[in-house]
């Protein structure tokens, strides 16, 4: 059964009222967002996922693909701390591969900006959303991008290589390719040796904005990289072991603690996972059944850099995730113009929730 627009809106209003009753302030960001902000954040890929329109006065605008960015911007400009926000409304997602996917749907969200206790804020968002989904046939999964980031930072290799890996944390294929290259698993491209030896003479004129200095700097960086020892097979194995972790939270935590022995830089991030576990228990969440997947959240458009979670419809793999969320401290840093605040939030899809209710 496909719920009507009125039914979906009523459900959305009820969910928003629930968050409001829990202390969140209702916000209503505009549908049209300046395209430049989103393009700067997500790059050109966002054009494949959001609708772009324009006028001669304001230039390119996007139909909001989510609420997180405008809510963060609004908070960074005139929000008091700590703050909790809730919202309900339509988001627009361009679809070019699957005509069965909705390109316009209602989201209800809950966002928490709080410096005091990140683990408690994580648990609060997760538990509130879990409660709102109460009774529906959904399976939660959690993860933590922060652990992978800490593992990368702990690799025995150059800062340049770490920066390259960090830049592609959210692009698993490129991340993998970089790891293969940095660990010496792939050969140097043809012609590269001659370039590094200084044997390449180029008579082509300099055109475009990328200057000769920039080219020289990159050649120097390539030379430095060529004499950097490969990332060891042992370290590569540790990253792989980490990415393969997929277990109920207590078992996953004990695997993380094991890894900590060999990858001490992940200690703080693992401690955060453990603190979150305790905060979840305090809110009555059954962590014994709660899945933890170390690679969860790496392919979404969102800018999560810590805790991540999703609720999938059990037995309905064709449905999109019913609710998703996570921590996005880095996003507040990028939008804050110098300021930053730890932030965590999540969104639900009332339309899908009604479908599941109808089927249940």
């Amino acid at each position, binding site marked *: 059964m496909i719920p009507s627009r009125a039914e979906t809106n009523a459900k959305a209003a009820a969910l928003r009222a629930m968050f409001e009753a829990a202390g969140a302030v209702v916000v209503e960001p505009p549908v049209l967002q300046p395209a430049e902000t989103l393009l700067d954040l997500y790059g050109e890929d966002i054009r*494949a996922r959001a609708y772009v329109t324009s006028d001669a006065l304001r230039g390119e605008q996007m139909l909001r693909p989510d609420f997180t960015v405008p809510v963060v911007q609004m908070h960074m400009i005139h929000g008091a701390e700590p703050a909790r926000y809730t919202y309900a409304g339509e988001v627009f997602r361009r679809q070019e591969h699957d005509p069965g996917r909705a390109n316009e749907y209602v989201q209800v969200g809950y966002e928490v900006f709080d410096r005091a206790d990140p683990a408690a804020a994580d648990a609060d968002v997760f538990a509130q959303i879990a409660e709102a989904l109460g009774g529906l046939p959904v399976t939660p999964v959690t993860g933590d991008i922060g652990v992978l980031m800490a593992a990368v930072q702990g690799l025995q290799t150059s800062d340049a290589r770490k920066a390259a890996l960090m830049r592609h944390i959210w692009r698993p294929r490129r*991340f993998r390719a970089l790891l293969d290259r940095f660990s010496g698993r792939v050969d140097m491209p043809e012609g590269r040796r001659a*370039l590094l030896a200084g044997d390449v003479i180029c008579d082509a004129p*300099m055109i475009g904005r990328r200057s000769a200095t920039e080219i020289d700097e990159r050649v120097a960086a390539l030379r430095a990289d060529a004499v950097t020892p490969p990332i060891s097979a042992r370290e590569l194995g540790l990253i792989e072991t980490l990415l393969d972790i997929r277990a109920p939270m207590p078992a996953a935590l004990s695997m993380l603690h094991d890894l900590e022995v060999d990858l001490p830089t992940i200690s703080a991030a693992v401690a955060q996972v453990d603190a979150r576990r305790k905060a979840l228990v305090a809110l009555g969440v059954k962590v014994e059944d709660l899945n933890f997947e170390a690679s969860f959240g790496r392919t979404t458009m969102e800018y999560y850099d810590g805790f991540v979670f999703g609720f999938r419809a059990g037995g309905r793999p064709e449905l999109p995730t019913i609710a998703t969320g996570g921590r996005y401290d880095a996003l507040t840093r990028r939008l804050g113009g110098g300021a930053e605040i730890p932030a965590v939030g999540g969104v639900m899809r009332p339309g899908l929730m009604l479908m599941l209710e109808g089927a249940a």
Partner: protein
Amino acid sequence: MNVKLGVPSKGRLMEKTFDWFAARGVRLSRTGSDREYAGAVEGIDNVSLVLLSAGEIPRELAAGRLHLGVTGTDLIHEKLALWEQLVDPVAPLKFGAADLVIAVPRAWVDVDTLDDLDAAAAAFRRTHGMRLRIATKYHRLVREFLRQNGVADYALVDSQGATEGTVMNGTAEAIADITSSGETLRANHLKVLSDGLILRSQATLWRSRVAATEDGGNDVLTRLLAQLGQA
């Protein structure tokens, strides 16, 4: 009913298409004055010729207003999402061959692969505070290709013609465009990335999967395709 065949309305593409059909006993021609886009078909009944821009043929096939159409693979892939569900390739016509490639200034001795392009884009953004610009008219194909290959920190800027000149003119740092011999690229001091081939294209005869074929249309199509040796 008449089966509608769409053919590019001018230039070499039109002439070569006419030749290809003529070699198979179907004579296509423009009628009336040079400026009038009307056409005639001889050698088979109930087929009408529609002359229009090669760039509009994908849309007309997808809408079912044409049964058959001649246009490049590049335009079909660029303009139609899920093109496999909308059109079938009937025959490659062995002309109009061109590759959609990514090209950068030849002076970029440090950039040979997409991996290099990605690293250069990251550094460029740090230095200039803007994303590295790639000029193209093939937005969808290029974006999809770069996404699959994990290239970030670039911006696509629209260029509907003379794209090879954009780098020299300072409106882009790199380009993605169609090339056949590579001569224009070389003349504009550009080189193709070794793994920068996005698509091999050539003029192709396409059949719409959605055009209505009742009232004998199917029979006409069957006869026409048989005559073209594509039954």
